[in-house]
Structures are given as C-alpha cells and as structure tokens.
C-alpha cells in the first residue's frame, strides 16, 4: 500500500486544521481526536519502516507527476525516524491530558492539540520528502507551530522566549530558503536526487560553496548547536513540559536530518569537497559536547539543565557526522533516535515532578524521590541513559562515535566523548543526591502524591524504552546500515 506514504503527512495536517472546528470547547474530544490521528500515523509509519527494512528505499510521485516535474516523496532508512516521532507524540498526547487541564487556559486547549497535530504532520513530511522546497514548507510548518507551542502556557517570559526562538528560526529559515534558491538557479531543479545529479556538472565554485555553507549553517541553528544555540535554553525550559519533550527530543533533530539530506547533494559535486566542512563539523560538535555539558552543570533549574544537555547531545551527533566514517555515522544515526527517547523521558518525568510539586529547582525538589518514587526512578533511568552508561539507550550512540574517532585516528575526539559523559555524570550524582539523600527543603514535599496514571504511564513506558533501546541497538543499527553506507561511500 504505497498511499501510506503521502497520507502519513497529509492526514495529521488536515486533522490539525479541523481540530478547533470539531472540538470547540471540548478538550476531551480534541485529545481523543489527536490520539486517534497519531495512532493512525504510528501504524502507517510502522508499515513504511517495515517496508524500507525489507525492500530498501522507495518513492511516491505526488499527483502522479514524475520527478523532477512534481514532488517526490522518498522514504529511506533515515525516514524511519518518523516512527519514533509518532510514538513519542502518542505518549506526549496521553501525558498532555491531565497536564494541560491545569497548565493551560481552557480556551486554548483545542488550539493546543491543533498545533500539536500540525507539528506532527510537519515533522513526518520533513523526514519523508525528496524535494528541497517541500522540505522547506514542512520545516516552516514545524517552526510556526513550535513558536506558538512554546508560548501557549502564557506569561511574559514565555512570550519573550518564543519571540527569541522566532527570530532565530526565521533568520535560519530565510538562509535555507535563499540557498535552496541558489541551488535552483544552478541546476534548475528542486528534486534532491536530480539536484545531486546536475550539481556534479556545475563548474562555478562560489555559489555551490555558498549553498553548502548556508544550508549547513541554517540547519545547525535549527539543531541548536553551540554557539548558535542561544534561542534553545529559554524556549525549551519555559514551554509546557509536554512541548519540551517534542521540541527537545524531536524538533531539533530535524536540523540534523536536514544535514543528512543535503550532504548527498554535494557528494558528487566536483566543484567542492566536503572534507573541510566535515572537519569543521567535528570540531564544532566537540565544542558543543563540552560547552553544553559544562553549562548544564551550573543549572539549578532542572528543565534548563535538560535544555543544555540537549545542546551537548546535538554536539555528539554533529561530531559523529563530522568524523564521517561508517562507525561514527552509525553512532550519529542511532543517537538521533535514542536521544529522542531519552530526552522525552527526562522532560516528561521532570514535568510530572514540577506539575505535582510546583517546584523546579534541584534545591526545592529535595526529597521528591520518596514522594514520587516511580517518576523519580524513570527520571534517573533517563539520566543514566543521557550519561551513556551501558546497557541504556545513550550508550551505543556514544560508543560508536568514540569508536569512529579512534578508527579515523582522532583519539582526541574519543576523549571528548568520554569527558562530556563524565561531566553529565556529575550532574546525575547531584540529582541522585538531591532526590533521595537530602532532607526536603519544603515540608510539604513529603505529602506530594505520585503523578496521575495518564502522566505516569508514558513516563514509565519511556523509561523502559530507554533500557530497551540500549539492549536492542542492533535493530536500528541494522536498519540504518544501508543509508550509512551510502552516505559514507558518497564522499
């Protein structure tokens, strides 16, 4: 059934636009509708992922217009990220029920679910399209809905954080659009495979270089890499907790997947060599690993700490891309998926704590391990994973990246991988200490009750996935192996 491919993006977008009309003033209906649509997408992307694992990449010509005349959707191994996107969105929607009832004004709840569905459709479309301008359109859908979701909880700081995010996002979007325009001027095409073919014969070097540099820079801003991360900490710390899970676990990864989409365009181009860019990416990634972890260390606010840890982990992925060997790319690919699971666990668990106790700093949250044992357990499993200890989901990605560094004779970068993990481990120890071993700062902390089932369920499930993701690493590794081979071989 090839129609699953376009419908996986089409259905959630239409459903998102219909949510405010259908479910006006009925938040329960809006949530049920969003859950049903996301369940459909999960089913569709699972079927597509199964097909790509069995048969390899496949395409769909929208409107039956053959590429490059029309828009080609292309589902390759990296598009399997859409399955992770759907699963995490499903859990976020379950979790959102009790959360938004308290955290959002009632008049905004149907729009909240509408924006979440548009966000979901945009993300799915982004990872399945084979067309450069179509990629931009879906990127904008994700961006516009994300800006709003950051501010949907209300408050002056939220509006400010969303505005900062909007400015950074708009500038990077314009840069990306401009560079897509440059590529179109050079090749006359927008289809990715066609652009790659035609770029091979372009002789003029400066515009090709400009397109490569501009697209890379634009997507790095979207990914929140240090030092272009300035929009990220506030936007990810101030937004409602379910939105944190979406934006920190999924949305920033689109910047990385964007890089994975554009590098093959230039791989065959005679005018430029990718090697210097990869060298720069490895260094930027390494700096981001250390800087993100370092800033995280000084955060008292648990959500801010998690936001900085995202910057560090994006650094790992970019380091893996920059090393560009098969092992390092495998590590980067696995970490894109596994970090999504881990960061969703962490933000949802931390969000449950903040929701139940009303406190958000380590100092105020002392003793919560006794009041909310299950949530704390899930949070600590997530923290262990983010450190990268085996057998959790954070381990394989970092392990492959470190191996990749050694393989390409760059032991310095392997040390960076290790040091980054050690710094985060210090933070983990601080959390452990605060949650379990310190006397509560607030007496009422012991009276805080465990989160309601529809919040605790997703948190525990994600915690379990953090462990499973580590134990079953060979699945994603085997799945993305052909794509990694193509990427590494193309250079």
């Amino acid at each position: 059934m090839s129609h699953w491919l376009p419908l996986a993006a089409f259905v959630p977008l239409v459903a998102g636009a219909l949510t405010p009309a259908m479910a006006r003033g009925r938040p329960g209906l809006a949530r049920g509708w969003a859950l049903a649509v996301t369940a459909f997408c999960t089913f569709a992307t699972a079927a597509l992922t199964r097909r790509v694992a069995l048969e390899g990449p496949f395409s769909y010509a929208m409107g039956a217009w053959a590429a490059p005349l029309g828009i080609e959707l292309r589902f390759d191994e990296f598009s399997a990220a859409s399955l992770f996107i759907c699963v995490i969105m499903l859990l976020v929607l379950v979790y959102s029920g009790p959360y938004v009832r308290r955290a959002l004004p009632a008049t905004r709840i149907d729009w909240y679910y509408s924006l979440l569905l548009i966000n979901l459709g945009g993300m799915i479309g982004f990872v399945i399209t084979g067309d450069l301008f179509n990629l931009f359109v879906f990127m904008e859908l994700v961006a516009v809905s994300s800006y709003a979701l950051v501010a949907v909880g209300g408050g002056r700081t939220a509006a400010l954080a969303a505005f900062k995010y909007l400015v950074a996002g708009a500038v990077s979007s314009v840069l990306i659009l401009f560079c897509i325009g440059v590529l179109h001027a050079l090749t006359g095409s927008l289809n990715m495979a066609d652009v790659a073919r035609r770029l091979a014969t372009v002789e003029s070097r400066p515009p090709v270089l400009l397109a490569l540099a501009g697209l890379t820079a634009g997507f790095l801003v979207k990914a929140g890499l240090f030092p272009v991360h300035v929009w990220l900490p506030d936007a990810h710390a101030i937004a409602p907790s379910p939105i944190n899970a979406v934006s920190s676990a999924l949305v920033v990864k689109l910047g990385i997947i964007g890089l994975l989409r554009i590098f093959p365009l230039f791989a065959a181009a005679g005018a430029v060599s990718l090697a210097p860019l990869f060298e720069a990416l490895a260094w930027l990634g390494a700096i981001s690993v250390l800087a993100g972890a370092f800033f995280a260390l000084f955060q008292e606010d648990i959500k801010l700490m998690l936001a900085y840890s995202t910057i560090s982990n994006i650094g790992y992925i970019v380091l893996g891309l920059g090393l560009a060997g098969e092992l390092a790319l495998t590590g980067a690919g696995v970490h894109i998926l596994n970090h999504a699971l881990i960061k969703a666990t962490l933000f949802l668990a931390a969000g449950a704590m903040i929701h139940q106790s009303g406190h958000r700093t380590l100092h105020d949250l002392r003793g919560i391990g006794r009041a909310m044992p299950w949530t704390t357990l899930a949070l600590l499993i997530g923290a262990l994973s983010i450190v990268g200890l085996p057998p959790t989901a954070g381990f394989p990605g970092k392990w492959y990246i470190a191996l990749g560094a050694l393989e390409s004779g760059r032991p310095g970068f392997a040390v960076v991988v290790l040091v980054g993990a050690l710094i985060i481990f210090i933070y983990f120890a601080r959390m452990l200490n605060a949650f379990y071993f310190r006397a509560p700062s607030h007496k009422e902390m012991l009276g805080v009750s465990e989160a309601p089932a529809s919040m605790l369920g997703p948190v525990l499930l994600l915690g379990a996935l953090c462990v499973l993701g580590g134990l079953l690493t060979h699945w994603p590794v085997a799945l993305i192996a052909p794509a990694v081979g193509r990427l590494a071989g193309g250079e």
Partner: protein
Amino acid sequence: MKKPLVAVTLAAAAVPMLIGVAALPRPGDPTAPAHTHVAAHYIEAGARETGADNRVTAVLLNYRAFDTFGEVLVIFAALAAVIAVRSPATPGGRADDMPGPGPGLPISPVVAFIIRLTAPFIALFGAFVIFRGHVSPGGGFQGGVILGALLVLLSLVLGRGAERPLLAVPLARWLQAAAPLAFTGVGLLGLALTGALLGYPAEPERHALRELMMITLDVGIGIGGAMIILGLFLEMRGD
C-alpha cells in the same frame, strides 16, 4: 562596542554571499539551468498537461500541489499560533498578559457608507480573481486576500464586538479550515480517479472535471485565506 561588532559580523557574512551570488547565472539568461530544465517543460507543456492556461496555477495546483497544501497549512498555523498565544484565559475575558488598546472611536458615518457602497464590487472582484485563477492571473491566494480585506472592512462597520461577531464562531472555524478541506476532497477524488493523491484525470473528456477540481481548490484557498485574515484581525485588534 556591540554595534561595531554586529556591523563587522554582518559584513563578514555578506561578502561571501555576494561573491557566491555574483557567480550565479545572469538573471534572464535564456541558457541558464533555471530556464532550460524543469521550467522549460512547465512553459512548453504545462497548459496541455494540466489544463490550466495560467502556468503559475499549473505549477501551484498541479505539479507542486503538495507544496501549496503545506503553504495553506502554514497560513492556518499562523492563525492557530496567534489564537493559542493571545486568546484570553476565560471566555469573553481579556488576554491576561498582553496589553491592548482600549475600545476605539466609533467609525465615521462617511467611512461606513463608503464601505457599504463598495463592498459588493470588492466581493465581485474577489470572486472573479478566484474563479478565473486557472486561466488568467489570479487564484485562491490573491482572491482570498481581497475577500479577507473586505471582511475586515465589514467587521469594522457591521461587527458588534467579541460577543456578537460577524460570523458565528463554530461556522467561522469550519471556514478557516476551508483550504485543507478542499485539498482533502480534491486530493482523495484524485486518488480515486488516478491512483495518486492530488492527481488529476488527464483524459480530454474529463477536462471539465479537472477544471472543477482546480476551481474547488481555488475557492477553498480563497475562503480559507479570507477567514484567516479576518480571524487574525479580530484576534489582534485588542477588543
């Protein structure tokens, strides 16, 4: 200290960009790839293949209809974003965290009269732009803006505040989703007829149906766009 630094950074970013752009094929050069590859096919065969004499519409609603679908959702998302961020915490209340202007002065009777006088002509022109979009310059987006401006004008004269809006809220919300709804209908019809989502029947005897499908999309885009412009205006005028 900060300003010179910004200036230097901007210059450092601008110079390589200018060098890159300077080496692009000259604008209007008929041998440039932008004019010889895909675009050449659109111009040469676009009208025949799509049934839309207006080549822009041929690209917008046929070859790259999925982009257009995404774009109407970006517009919808903009409305959803504004409402989600600005709507008051309680129904009928004021936005809690955003200062807005107080109730404005009453509209002058001259302005009100002129708006009422010109409204039918504006509406007719908007409808013309929408319905002729596939053959002559125009289309759903352009016509939608004209109708949207008309709705904004009318809501100034006829609107009666947030409690009694020009259009009932439930109806308004369906109309705001008109463009995605039109794409769904046309897209699924195309799927049934041609086996591809957003496909159009290419047989000559079905030319009328193909034209009708394009007009449906244009009308959906136009109505949806107009309603979203009105929605943005009502949400942001601050009463």
